[in-house]
């Protein structure tokens, strides 16, 4: 970011570079589009979590998963070369039990939460903990787990010992995006939070099954559409 740019100038230009960096850093400190720093991101989460509305929603949920935080994109007219541009953050979290996504807009310059709402039917991508939970649920399920183990053996030539034998990525799954796959617990996916798992062996051989897991119900879906005959 600007810090890296300053170091670049220092390497290139010595003292003159440092002076230029000071001048430049002061005038272009945190451009309006620059991503938030780690410190800004951390502060945004702290401010959101301290908000009474956040606490109320968290208390009602069976589990709250922090999803991601990034710079809040301002409307176009609000970014017209401001001297001190807005530094606001979007904080997203999922409220299990309530089946809603929480969205807070945090103003870092003013140290306050500008708006906070929760809505159903919006499913931002899964965080690493959710992806791992989806895998664990799939492996523990009698039907899905068996298919995974059979397909792992076909791909790796040996038995699956544990999750450590796998690489996994998980996408959000919506029932209405793939009606043919949306059976059983998967039919509520979208309104509820569901994962579709992509699996490979540790040496990157694809495992021929893409289990569906409804995280809101802690249930793996029988992966019938993906079973090899």
């Amino acid at each position, binding site marked *: *970011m*600007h*810090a*890296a*740019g300053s170091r670049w*100038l220092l390497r*290139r*230009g010595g003292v*003159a*570079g440092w*002076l*230029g960096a*000071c*001048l430049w*850093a*002061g005038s*272009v*400190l*945190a*451009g*309006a*589009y*620059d*991503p938030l*720093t*780690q*410190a*800004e991101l951390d502060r945004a989460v702290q401010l959101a979590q301290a908000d009474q509305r956040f606490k109320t929603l968290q208390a009602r949920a069976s589990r709250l998963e922090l999803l*991601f935080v*990034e*710079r809040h*994109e301002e*409307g*176009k007219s609000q*970014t017209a*070369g401001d001297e001190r*541009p807005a530094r606001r953050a979007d904080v997203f979290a999922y409220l299990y039990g309530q089946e809603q996504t929480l*969205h807070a807009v945090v103003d870092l310059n003013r140290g306050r939460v500008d708006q906070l709402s929760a*809505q159903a*039917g*919006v*499913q931002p*991508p899964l965080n690493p903990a959710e992806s791992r939970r989806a895998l664990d649920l799939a492996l523990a399920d009698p039907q899905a787990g068996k298919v995974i183990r059979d397909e792992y053996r*076909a791909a790796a030539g040996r038995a699956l010992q544990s999750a450590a034998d796998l690489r996994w990525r998980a*996408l*959000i799954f*919506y029932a*209405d*995006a*793939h*009606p043919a796959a949306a059976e059983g617990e998967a039919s509520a996916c979208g309104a509820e939070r569901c994962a*579709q798992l*992509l699996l490979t062996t540790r040496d990157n051989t*694809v495992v*021929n099954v*893409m289990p569906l897991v409804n995280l809101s119900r802690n249930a793996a879906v029988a992966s019938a*559409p*993906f079973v*090899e*005959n």
Partner: protein
Amino acid sequence: MNRLESVMSLTQPLCLALALLAWTGPNTAMAAPPPGPALPVNCSGDYRVDKTLSNGARWTLCWEPRFLEGVVLRDVVYTAPQGEPVLVLSRANPAQIHVPYDDNGARFHDVSDYGLGGPHLARLDSADCPEGELRSNGERPVVCLKVVNRGYVTKYYTTALQGEALRLYSVSHVGEYNYIYDYGFYDDGSIEFAVGASGKLQIYTRNAEKGEKYGWPLGALQYGVSHVHNYYWRLDFDLAGVDDDQVEELAFPPEDETRETRIKVQTAFTEEAARTVEPENFRSWRIKDTRLTNADGHSISYHLEADPAHRFLGPDYEPFTESEVYITRYRLCERFASHNPSWNGCAEDAPGFVNGESLEGEDLVLWYGQAFHHLPSDEDEPKMHTHWSRFYVRPRDLNSESPLTSSAAASQEAHPHSHAH
């Protein structure tokens, strides 16, 4: 603010004073702001791109890594040689990668449901960016910038003019796929939008009946399942500013049933619209400024020449696949062609964005979709060769003559009408 920023802001007045005292002219020129008319710069450090190509053409822009969209481009400004800066795009980014498999075994929406940014935006190193410049997001290099020789600008008998382009690319991994988003900023003002699909195949089958019907045989006892990559782009053109832009469709249907002649049909969109490609009539679109003209009195514009090799029409529940081009009024919540987050009632897909709103005097956004049907082959293993889907937007009447070939013609052609060979 973090500690570094606090220190920097506190020392700024002192730095300013010392800088003024130490100013010695040319030796400190590299610390001075870049030359040319002042434009608001809304980014800093590695996120700021300002490149002047060998012939004097200049591109400036900002890039921002975002969690879902990946690398977003902003404030893209072109300055022709000896020209004035022209804002072309306020924002450009991937608006979806939709990947339905021919056997209906999966239907992915990668940008919205997985995200091209965050941990999925690949860390690049020198092997990713040979002879280029790595740009970082914090401590993580994620963008490669390089100026490349792009071949002939023009060739005319003894005139041979070679050109350059600035390329900016990043890589996002989604499962087995690694998508390369590669933008080309040409010396003539053209912009190339390219996606490279690389990595490894995601879905196989050992079922011979399924494999023969929906895929291609690969390796031992396996078939790669065929699939389509639908790449959508959100292009927020603001040609020479937000105001006074208009999208116009151009087509050249036969004048009559003899098909001996073709007529030009220009349709300006006054309302939001969804349009399909129509290669048999050479259908294309341009974004023009209704107020600003070049020295010949022609409206300045940028032209999107669709050149589709494949077209994907999906099932009823994928209405966003019905059209390749959407022209909508700017709305910040409208981000993805499908699976758009429906915060506060925002529509869920591009067809939903088109709801009869007037475009006259409004801020416009152009959406464009390109399809590629991937039939796997043995060459896709052990790792795939990159397959590129690309399109271009080119200046149309931005200047009253070519800013590149006019100076070349003056310097290189002594006898323009004598053909010695």
